[in-house]
């Protein structure tokens, strides 16, 4: 029997039972579209989160004082610090050719007041490099000036929340602000950016790192943010950073380096596993649809006993019968897959229309995996009915009219 003839004959059998076949195809279609939709949703969540991370600033590396074995995740709050990371360490890093920009961070909580209003605010001592490393945008004014970082200029930059609470609708640029026991002039206000990497950039005040050193009476940095050469692999950059600091710390490797890559990779892994999990749960419906196909095919074999008997009598080998029923099962799951993919893609497009913020993209692997699983289910669950059909004894099959 020719292959095309087998397919046509099997297709005719499917068309012969329109309702039954279309319900089976629907079942398979729902399973496939569920897999496609859910995995694309998971994927969307994943690219959303990783997108948020890239907004932190490209090629960012964080250097923390203290040695800690970590491959990303949340940096240790209280690192054991055998030796402080100082402004001079940060500046030394900035002189390396692999580092584009450096932003030392000194952190503390200090009462800040203006025009009789006072509030406790997170104060960050840093340099002009911060603007580039953290990809900051100004709402008005300018950021800290690029000059000698050791100079304690009486300037500061406000976050949007602080500005609103201290000045409300009033003019803030050029006003004086009291930070702890120091006074400084407001030279700029940051554009609202929301919470990222656990710190609310809207709810803080930035001032030159030298001012912060005096304010907090310390020379130890909370951390150093670096923007490395994008052409360089981050491991190589990390090795270079470690070498520079070791030179300055008498050969002691006492820093922790967190690259944006490793943090991102961790989140990416978590969300990928989550997406796969969701996909696998949806995949269960494919197995259910496979069982549906088996059920329908078994009914079909029973109903068409006489037909099978006739085909055997007029000379169809058992293999032909088996193949016919397998093709029928595969056609059912194939049609289901086709409609399911179509529905899944349409659903994803519709969701994207409704929620444009969600970067919905159907991952190619989910299309391949759901289609593959559906066809495999058709093959596996179609096998038993096909074998049963081929085993029918032509004499008994024919007498059953």
């Amino acid at each position: 029997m020719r292959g095309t003839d087998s397919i046509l004959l099997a297709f005719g059998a499917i068309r012969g039972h329109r309702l039954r076949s279309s319900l089976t195809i629907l079942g398979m279609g729902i399973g496939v579209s569920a897999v496609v939709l859910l995995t694309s949703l998971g994927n969307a969540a994943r690219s959303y989160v990783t997108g948020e991370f890239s907004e932190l600033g490209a090629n960012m590396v964080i250097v923390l004082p203290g040695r800690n074995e970590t491959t990303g995740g949340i940096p240790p709050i209280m690192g054991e610090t055998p030796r402080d990371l100082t402004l001079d360490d940060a500046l030394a890093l900035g002189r390396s050719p692999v580092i584009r920009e450096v932003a030392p961070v000194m952190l503390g909580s200090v009462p800040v007041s203006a025009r009789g209003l006072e509030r406790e605010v997170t104060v960050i001592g840093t340099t002009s490099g911060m603007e580039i490393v953290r990809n900051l945008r100004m709402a008005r004014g300018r950021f800290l000036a690029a000059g000698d970082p050791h100079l304690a200029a009486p300037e500061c930059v406000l976050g949007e929340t602080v500005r609103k609470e201290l000045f409300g609708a009033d003019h803030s640029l050029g006003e004086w602000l009291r930070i702890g026991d120091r006074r400084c002039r407001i030279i700029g206000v940051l554009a609202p950016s929301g919470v990222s990497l656990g710190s609310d950039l809207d709810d803080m005040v930035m001032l030159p790192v030298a001012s912060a050193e005096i304010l907090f009476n310390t020379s130890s940095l909370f951390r150093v943010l670096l923007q490395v050469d994008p052409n360089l692999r981050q491991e190589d950059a990390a090795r270079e950073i470690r070498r520079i600091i070791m030179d300055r710390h008498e050969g002691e490797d006492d820093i922790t380096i967190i690259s944006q890559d490793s943090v991102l990779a961790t989140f990416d892994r978590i969300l990928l596993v989550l997406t796969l999990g969701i996909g696998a749960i949806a995949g269960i419906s494919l197995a259910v649809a496979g069982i549906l196909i088996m059920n329908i095919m078994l009914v079909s074999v029973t109903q068409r006993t006489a037909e099978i008997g006739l085909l055997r009598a007029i000379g169809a080998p058992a293999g032909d019968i088996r193949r016919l029923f397998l093709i029928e099962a595969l056609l059912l799951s194939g049609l289901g897959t086709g409609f399911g993919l179509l529905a899944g893609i349409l659903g994803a497009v519709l969701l994207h229309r409704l929620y444009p913020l969600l970067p919905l993209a159907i991952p190619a692997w989910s299309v391949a995996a759901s289609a593959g699983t559906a066809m495999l289910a058709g093959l596996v669950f179609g096998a038993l009915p096909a074998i049963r059909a081929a085993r029918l004894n032509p004499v008994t099959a024919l007498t059953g009219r």
Partner: protein
Amino acid sequence: MISLRGICRHYRLGEQQLAALTDIDLDIAQGEYLSIMGPSGSGKSTLLNQIALLDRPTAGTYLLNGRDVTSLPDDELARIRRENMGFVFQFFHLIPRLSAAENIEIPLLLAGIDPSLRKRKVTEAITAIGLAGRSAHRPDQLSGGERQRVAIARATIMQPSTLLADEPTGNLDQATGKQVIDLLEDLNRRGVTLIMVTHDQAIGGRAGRRIRIVDGRIIGAG
């Protein structure tokens, strides 16, 4: 040339052995017109199934054109049936979802014959049975006699040497039954061996050679 030697067919029914056929010796020459008659349950259909190679004997030997086919594998038997035997059944056994032409085409389909040749042969066959205008009709749109004529066209499309008919008129009225018998006898006159099971004396009596079977044994020409 079909020759059966000592063919027995026993069924197991629980503990009991049921002898459906006992010691059948039968030679059928090419071109013969043979009727098998007997009361129901006598084993005439069982004998037809043996001749048709649809069922294997419990004991005995089957020689087809001098070749022992008793213990050939199933697929080989299927091939022999496809190429040498045509079947006509009481209940027609047409596939309900296929048109008359498509039903006739099935044996050609199974033999893997080229589509253009298939189309030509089917057109010839359907014209020969006088149903050219109804080739696109499905079985439920045909009368009983028309259905049996389609079944005969299907049985003869591979030009088999032997035609096996099991109560071919059992489901037809007198007049259409006569037409079907005429069609079969016409084929026999052209050299096809015709073997017919019937319990209708009038029809069985028309055959050139008649066999009576009772309790699984041939009890002579009747």
